[in-house]
């Protein structure tokens, strides 16, 4: 019998600003190529019984800050279960603006504060102007060192540092970091990642996808590991974008 990985996608309808659905497509493709069943459930306001424990991977993409409050209210009763999920080493992947949803206070430009779930300690301030650009960094996931390349559209800046139980997910080679965490990117707690890298992160970086799946299988007690996927296209993409970043930096270092 094939092993099965259960994936929850939080508020896919409204937290999906930048082609983030590609992440689920990437997980599904790699799982199916690796002879693992992918069970994907979409969690939203109409979901009657959401139990994080049932899932191996939970994904939350970026949303618009103005619509965080009802989602936060809906997730609040599940906060302890989500923290337990993280502590058990399961995988919560949060991208883009949704770091604010899982973080502390976000100061809005209009002057009021948005209270997050406090699952990560970071505080944020909404930007007057949007910042968009590429991010290229090194990260270690499941004891494997890797390069990550993606893009960020920052509506907020992380203005506080990390707490004692948190580590930066990445160390930036190219791209702009937040004021609170210079040179660093995102947060990792056990196997859960909170990153500004948005869009189809797991499509562009299949080496991370593979390790996430291996962690999910290990958490289930499966000795099974997926076969090495063909990632030659993504490797060519990474090399092309590294060249692009190198040229862009040479021409516009002040832009970062």
């Amino acid at each position, binding site marked *: 019998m094939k092993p099965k990985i259960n994936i929850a996608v939080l508020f896919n309808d409204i937290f999906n600003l930048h082609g983030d659905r590609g992440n689920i497509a990437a997980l599904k493709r790699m799982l199916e190529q690796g002879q693992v069943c992918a069970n994907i459930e979409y969690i939203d306001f109409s979901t009657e019984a959401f139990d994080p424990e049932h899932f191996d991977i939970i994904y939350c993409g970026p949303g618009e800050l103005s619509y965080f409050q009802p989602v936060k209210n809906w997730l609040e009763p599940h906060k302890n279960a989500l923290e337990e999920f993280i502590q058990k080493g399961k995988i919560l992947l949060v991208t883009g603006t949704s770091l604010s949803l899982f973080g502390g206070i976000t100061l809005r430009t209009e002057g009021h504060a948005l209270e997050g779930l406090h699952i990560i300690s970071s505080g944020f301030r909404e930007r007057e102007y949007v910042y968009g650009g590429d991010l290229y960094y090194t990260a270690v996931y499941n004891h494997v060192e890797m390069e990550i390349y993606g893009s960020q559209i920052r509506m907020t800046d992380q203005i506080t540092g990390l707490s004692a139980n948190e580590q930066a997910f990445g160390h930036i080679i190219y791209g702009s970091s937040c004021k609170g965490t210079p040179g660093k990117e995102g947060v990792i707690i056990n196997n859960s990642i909170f990153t500004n890298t948005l869009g189809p992160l797991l*499509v562009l970086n299949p080496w991370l996808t593979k390790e996430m799946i291996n962690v999910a299988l290990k958490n289930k007690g499966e000795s099974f590991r997926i076969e090495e996927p063909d990632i030659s296209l993504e490797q060519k993409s990474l090399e092309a974008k590294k060249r692009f970043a190198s040229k862009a930096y040479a021409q516009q270092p002040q832009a970062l």
Partner: protein
Amino acid sequence: MSFYIALWLGKIVNAMINIIDKNRGSDYTGKIARKICPKFLLGFKDIDYEKVLFITGTNGKSSTNNLVNHLLKSGGKTVVSNLEGANLMTGIMTAFIKAASVTGKIKTDFFVFEVDERYLRAIHEQFPAGNILVTNIQKDQVQRNGDPDFIYRKLFPICKKNVRLFLNNDEPRALSFSSHNKNYVTYGVSKHSEAFTKDKSFPSMPCPVCGHSIRFRYFNNDNVGKFQCTGCDYKSNEAADYQVEEADFDEQKFMLKGISFNMPYSVPFMVYNYAAAIAAAKEFAGIRIEDMVSAFDNFQNIGGRYEALTYKSKTIKYIRMKQENPDTFQTSINNITHDTSEKMICLGLGPITDITPHYTNTFYTYDCDLARLADCNAEKYLCFSEPVCYDVTNRLIYAGVPPEKITTIPTDDIDTLLHEIDKTHTDNIYLITLLKTFDAIKQKLSG
């Protein structure tokens, strides 16, 4: 006094530009005027702001502006406008410099301006239009616009004011301004033959009223169609005040209030522009609907998105794309796939280089349903332009396109591109790429 200096200097510079090249200078003199007199537009007196219409929103501003101008002029009205497409403060200032007398008087029946959505507030502060037409508020140029709510919040302070609104009945964000300002007219389109749906993995949008999810019964254009909120009673009206019905893209006709019109451009995204323009021309300028019919027969859109080139025996059909704009990308893909004949599809999406830092965003393509590309009788797919061609190739593979049918060339070199086109059997070539790449091809082919 600075107003008159700005005006006179602007007129002198305009005259000089006209001698050199009449097609230049769509906002140059406005830049000069603004430096001399930052509140230049406030200097024009005796303006009846009820005769001023601003057209704003993400997609369709230029086409709607062109058509409103055409309908008004065909109806015998005079119009001051920015048809050159310069839709920032300085473009509008330039239009005023051109239209005004040396004493700063402007004789015209109406003012109709396309206005960039990010600058609506600043422009409205100087020139408080009494009418605002909102086409839609969608994902676009995320490097500067972030997300649609960022733009919504820029439009909101103006749209809730004492202005008359023209709102798209089938676009949730635009229509929601009607909850805050009761002086509005709606326009829309009944379900047409090219309407489509998307599966649950595709995003919808949050309800602008309660934040829950919007469900679309169908899409006439991407993210535009009959909708209803899943959390509150917010929904599109069953019919808009100005509702296009029976849009027939084969016969190139549509009906509005029982009157038949010819479609000058028979593509789905233009139909909303038709409805919007008719609503504005009737309500804003008082032109009778039946008198607009003949104007549709000879409307020519300025700077349209489609162009064809002949290359040896092949026809290269170019579709201009707006980068970082999934809705127009989806529309372009739909247009290609509606052609059932054999074809080659060339995609040169390119990195984003409008502002710094330049970056490699192709993620908007994942918001689009490209599955139909896999089954559209394509002989070959070509992905070009370093550094994103591999990502675009991968996107096609995710959509179900067989990898062996895709050629990937990490270059923008025109000779290499044409060489790949040469190798195909079909003469039916579709090209989606940036305007500058297309211009380079055009230049190459013209010798």
